[in-house]
């Protein structure tokens, strides 16, 4: 094109500009013609009927079969499926003179039909287009509903009471759902819950890849011994002042949990804290229980701090910066309140002090807390900073956190060249399988309408009151999370929170998602069984003379739970 302009040898600049404008106009006309052509084709060759389907809560319904019928016995004139936004459109070759029946069918919904006749058909014939508008489908409680609900509850119970490994329980659950759908559904259509293809669509791959990338990064960083070294430095700095030591350890744990996950953080912190506690001559649990409480709360500061935040972030499109901006300060205030309570609760313990440990034991402690591999430390530290930069700056170019994490993990694998088999083993596939199976099970209860029903109940309670909604999510989820594993709880709550976010005026600030994040994580502090980090901490301390009893944890954990939930709720009210 440029060459042609030059060859024309136009006399001056203004003529060249006019020529370019003219060509631009021509291009516009041609393109416009191309764009409008399909419309003409419809008018010439057929008639378009469109509409949109929603559930009782106004959420789009996809995969519904929409048919255009002239009579019940004749084959349909046209057939289509609704898309993910609930919209559907179908093209008819001809329009009947008397009436046109549009039927909508979808498992777990009551079938509906609408009849076009008279004026509607005249309009369709004359303009070639008829918009039916939005049809709200009513839910149907069928056999599939009860199967999905029973399986979901059974999986929760199996996990809660440790009858089966979480991943096994979730896999068993989705297997039952699939078998019932395919085998049972062949004989009794009401038993169809969803197809395998539909089930796969419920898996949030962003969560899976973000967790996978972070696992590799964490596996490399944890091997450097940085957190154990920091804990030992805290011991040295505190010079025997246990109350100061516990505050520093809580801070280290909270920060570590914000960057890693709280489960890994506790695996790293508990062994060295046991040794430090014994060296100080105090009950190590006075250090460890506050650490686990700080870990559960500190994790929610960032997107990658807890698996629940990763799930919430991926589901609601909340980025790393959003979590930092909307939760960090609130979490810090909650940590201060927690620190004050812990200092008071363990006040007798701080008065105890041993005469110190021998130089041999001190050397042993120092040896156990030394940096393992300084070369790997600075390299992995640098890559970790780059990954954080990716999380923070990537949002400007729509770079999803999972890509930053995977790129960081790959960079470390290339730069440090660790044993790739060891690194692949560091990826906990069991966890990833658990997540995938869990997403599908939650998809099943979403499919049959349980989530919709619960969302409807909550909506009736909350109405349009955002403060009440926030309160209910923070304290309701927080209370449930004291006994129910927070990962399945969060997965189940996400569609409910989405519904409330869409229905309550002002909730589009996503405040309810932050409320869910706070409730799910802070509630984990209530009971010993409330979180994975608590259980693993108890498991490690049981290897020594300092097992954590249910009652001992409860005495600190429950007040801290409601104290931090209250601080979190007030923070959200102030922030939003």
């Amino acid at each position, binding site marked *: 094109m440029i060459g042609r302009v030059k060859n024309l040898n136009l006399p001056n600049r203004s003529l060249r500009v006019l020529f370019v404008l003219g060509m631009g106009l021509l291009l516009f006309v041609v393109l416009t013609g191309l764009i409008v052509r399909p419309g003409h084709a419809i008018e010439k060759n057929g008639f378009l009927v469109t509409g949109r389907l929603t559930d009782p809560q106004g959420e789009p319904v996809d995969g519904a079969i929409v048919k255009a019928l002239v009579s019940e016995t004749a084959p349909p004139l046209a057939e289509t499926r609704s898309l993910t936004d609930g919209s559907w459109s179908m093209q008819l070759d001809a329009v009947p003179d008397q009436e046109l029946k549009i039927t909508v069918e979808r498992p777990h919904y009551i079938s509906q039909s609408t009849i076009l006749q008279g004026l509607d058909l005249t309009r369709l014939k004359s303009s070639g287009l008829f918009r039916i508008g939005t049809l709200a489908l009513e839910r149907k409680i069928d056999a599939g509903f009860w199967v999905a609900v029973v399986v979901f509850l059974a999986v929760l119970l199996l996990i809660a009471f440790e009858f089966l490994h979480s991943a096994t329980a979730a896999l068993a659950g989705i297997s039952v759902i699939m078998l019932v759908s395919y085998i049972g559904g062949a004989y009794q259509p009401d038993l169809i819950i969803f197809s395998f293809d539909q089930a796969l669509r419920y898996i949030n791959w962003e969560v899976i890849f973000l967790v996978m990338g972070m696992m590799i990064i964490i596996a490399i960083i944890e091997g450097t011994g940085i957190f154990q070294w920091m804990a030992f430095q805290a011991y040295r700095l505190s010079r025997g002042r246990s109350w100061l030591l516990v505050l520093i350890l809580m801070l280290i744990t909270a920060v570590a949990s914000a960057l890693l996950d709280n489960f890994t953080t506790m695996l790293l912190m508990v062994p060295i804290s046991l040794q430090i506690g014994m060296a100080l001559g105090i009950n190590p649990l006075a250090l460890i229980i506050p650490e686990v409480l700080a870990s559960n709360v500190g994790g929610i500061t960032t997107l990658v701090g807890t698996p629940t935040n990763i799930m919430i972030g991926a589901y609601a499109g909340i980025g790393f910066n959003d979590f930092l901006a909307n939760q960090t300060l609130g979490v810090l205030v909650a940590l201060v309140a927690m620190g004050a309570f812990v200092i008071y609760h363990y006040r007798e313990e701080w008065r105890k002090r041993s005469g110190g440990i021998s130089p041999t034991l001190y050397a042993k402690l120092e040896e156990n807390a030394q940096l393992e591999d300084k070369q790997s430390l600075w390299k992995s530290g640098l890559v970790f900073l780059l990954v954080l930069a990716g999380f923070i700056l990537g949002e400007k170019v729509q770079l999803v956190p999972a890509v930053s994490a995977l790129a960081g993990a790959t960079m470390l694998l290339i730069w440090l060249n660790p044993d790739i088999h060891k690194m692949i083993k560091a990826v906990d596939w069991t966890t990833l399988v658990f997540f995938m199976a869990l997403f599908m099970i939650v998809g099943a209860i979403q499919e049959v309408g349980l989530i919709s029903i619960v969302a409807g109940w909550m909506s009736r309670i909350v109405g349009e009151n955002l403060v009440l909604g926030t309160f209910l999510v923070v304290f309701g989820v927080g209370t449930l999370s004291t006994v129910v594993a927070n990962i399945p709880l969060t997965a189940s709550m996400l569609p409910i929170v989405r519904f409330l976010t869409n229905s309550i005026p002002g909730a589009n600030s996503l405040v309810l998602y932050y409320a869910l994040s706070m409730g799910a994580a802070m509630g984990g502090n209530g009971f010993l069984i409330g979180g994975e980090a608590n259980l693993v901490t108890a498991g490690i301390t049981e290897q*020594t003379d300092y097992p954590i009893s249910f009652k001992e944890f409860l005495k600190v954990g429950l007040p801290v739970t409601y104290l931090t939930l209250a601080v979190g709720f007030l923070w959200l009210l102030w922030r939003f």
Partner: protein
Amino acid sequence: MKTILCPTRGGKESRPNQDFAINLAKERGMRLLFLYVSDIRFISRSALPIVVDIEAELDEVGEFLLAMAQERAVKAKVPTEVSVRRGIFNKVLKEVIAEEGITTVVLGSSSRGKRVTTDEYLQDLGQEMNLETGVEFIVVQDGKLVTRYDAIGKDQG
């Protein structure tokens, strides 16, 4: 040299029982072996990624705990060694008894604070192990003899 084996979890509550083993070794002129066994089966039910070498971390805890016990035994001039093992306690105990030529085992519990094991459990374990391995088993609580099972049967202490 005959050896007394003292499995321990090493906290404050275990000290009277460790002292019992130290005194017994001194009285009998025997070598003392402190044993720490970590068992990480608790972690297998977790749904979250386990990227930390928790066994190695617990080995370090065990080494530290045993170093504290060994320091007191050395002060009492008892030749002492330590061993940190991984696995199921009963199984490891039998292995160590066989490998180290153990003649006496001191199993302890505490009535104070929280208890990892009950007296009944330890007595049953002592009796069972005594029958299986034939070595002397002494069950103590808070540093005091509760039951002794020698090579030929059971004597009340």
